[in-house]
């Protein structure tokens, strides 16, 4: 009989859940700890069903006490467990930031290399659901600033599925940013888009006229923009940074060397962000490859307002990317 190959699509949410489930099954030292991860089914239903499968000892609901439970996760990692700590959204991560900075990221160094902290902290984030200023922060740049952390950004379904497993191989603290706006987004898992490490950036789409460098929610937006640009004869490369700390300098240099023009897309506020860092790296490592100044499209310097039209105007949209690229290549 002829085997019919079916291409299966899954949501970003299910990809995250599969990654989590797999990690829990593989290693019984892995446990999930966070607000509403169990009985509520996960604030965004990512951990739905896991309580039934793994029990309350491994899918631990915790009280509202971000500093306390993130710190406890760090302690559990020190004590030999493999905790995955979920901070419901990045907006609440600030309450835990002291634990992350002064314990997770620092203990190895202060102890002269004796104490490693293999904790994984998952944080959902993103803008675009009209949640207003306090619930629409983009703190990737803050975390990416912290020496001692590895910071990952899940911009595709492939990374949603596999990044957690790789993070759990690390000896050092890893922070993973997941994007709520993409949770319901369906896609196939493309073999050629899977990256089996958390060191490298990934060219999601090859192109020759200009490189868009981005991460997180910017990746699919950039790919969509690239499709539209192809229609007007502009062949855009899209580099997904994936790893915000440490940044993959080789991949950045390679794309600049290939297209000689760079636009960086970031939802976070423009000043002092990841885009600024990438720009500086290009100056340091690939300046003479540039045909034009590096440009950035980033978040407006304003707490994100509630109304949709103002929220949309606060961050780069696909149309903005298309327009910007056209201008940059003179079309």
């Amino acid at each position: 009989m002829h085997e019919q190959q079916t291409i299966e699509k899954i949501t970003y949410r299910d990809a995250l859940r599969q990654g989590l489930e797999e990690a829990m099954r593989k290693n019984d030292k892995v446990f999930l700890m966070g607000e509403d991860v169990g009985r509520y089914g996960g604030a965004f239903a990512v951990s739905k069903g896991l309580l039934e499968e793994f029990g309350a000892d491994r899918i631990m609901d915790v009280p509202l006490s971000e500093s306390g439970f993130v710190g406890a996760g760090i302690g559990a990692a020190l004590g030999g467990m493999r905790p995955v700590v979920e901070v419901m959204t990045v907006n609440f991560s600030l309450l835990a930031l002291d634990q992350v900075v002064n314990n997770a990221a620092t203990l190895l160094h202060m102890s002269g290399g004796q104490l490693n902290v293999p904790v994984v902290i998952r944080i959902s984030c993103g803008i675009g659901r009209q949640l207003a200023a306090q619930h629409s922060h983009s703190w990737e740049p803050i975390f990416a600033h912290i020496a001692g952390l590895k910071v990952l950004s899940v911009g595709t379904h492939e990374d949603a599925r596999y990044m957690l497993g790789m993070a759990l191989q690390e000896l050092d603290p890893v922070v993973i940013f997941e994007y709520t706006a993409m949770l319901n987004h369906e896609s196939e898992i493309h073999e050629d888009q899977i990256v089996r490490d958390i060191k490298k950036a990934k060219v999601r789409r090859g192109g020759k006229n200009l490189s868009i460098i981005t991460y997180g929610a910017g990746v699919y937006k950039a790919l969509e923009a690239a499709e539209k640009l192809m229609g007007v004869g502009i062949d855009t490369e899209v580099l997904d940074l994936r790893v915000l700390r440490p940044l993959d300098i080789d991949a950045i240099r390679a794309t600049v060397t290939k297209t000689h023009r760079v636009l960086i897309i970031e939802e976070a506020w423009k000043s002092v962000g990841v885009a600024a860092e990438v720009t500086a790296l290009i100056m340091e490592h690939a300046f003479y490859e540039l045909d034009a100044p590096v440009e950035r499209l980033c978040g407006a310097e304003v707490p994100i307002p509630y109304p949709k039209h103002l929220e949309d105007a606060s961050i780069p949209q696909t149309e903005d990317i298309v327009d910007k690229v056209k201008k940059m290549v003179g079309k």
Partner: protein
Amino acid sequence: MKETPVIESKQRGQVDHNHGMELLRQMKSIRALEDKAAEMYSKMKIRGFLHLYVGEEAVAVGVMQSLTQDDNVLCTYREHGHALVRGISARKIMAEMYGKQEGCSLGRGGSMHLFDKSKKFFGGNAIVAGHLPLAVGMALADKKQEKGDITACFFGEGAAAEGEFHESLNLATLFEVPVLFVCENNRYAMGTALQYTHHEQNLEKKGVGYGIEATAVDGMNVLAVEKAARKAVKYIRKTGKPYFLVCNTYRYRAHSMFDAELYRTKEEVKEWKKRDPIQTFTDQLLKQGLITEKQIKTMDKEIEKEIDEAVDYAEAGTWEPVEDLEKYVYSK
């Protein structure tokens, strides 16, 4: 320190016609506003998060009776009812929920961030427990300036697990500042029930270690809440010290607009609805002959009209121009 006008009968949890009508009207207005907000949410006029106060009305209404217009009020994201009782009009609230510039926060804040400085209503804070330290500081400022006002701070039982709760209680007693901490214990923090959040579930006992005067009260009974709040406020005004009031209540609806409610049974919700603050109070007023069915009907009609007008106002409201996006980041 200012004197709160204390009416003796209210101290004993009794009520006359006028006051009964007023309490009932306030609770019913909150419920009508919330029901309408839910409707407008399903029509996608209101977006983002929308946390409704249905079932908990007696708490805001009871406590607010004890405050003067000079006192400060700080709330969580579940604050539409508090804002309304505080005197922000339903239309300003509805327009804010729509995101129109006619709203009480010019549309910038939405449902979770209602503000009105003229009413001394300081939000609408969506970071759980984030406003407790603010309340301590506002009370400290009042104390330093010898204003004699108090600061009322509403928050959930989930918030009482946060470090900021504990730090704030300690600071408030240490500084001896006039804060009324009102814990709205609706038994759930999103889907996490009280017993999974607190080892000590008699939350008022948390006051002991901090040396703060504390009581718990039936938050489904508006007169009981009012009485307890008046007593607390009297104490605060007299001593200048903080007070911790726990109101045990229940949220009927989802945490925000939608959740699967996997964390509780339908029976449990039904049981609590039997203690509905509006229904039980209505029954009491009727039984005592303080109000007639006809008066209730008239009241319902008036409220409905007010809420419908609020929707009309919000609908007619305008969007702030995009060019103004970067406004209000720094003071002029």
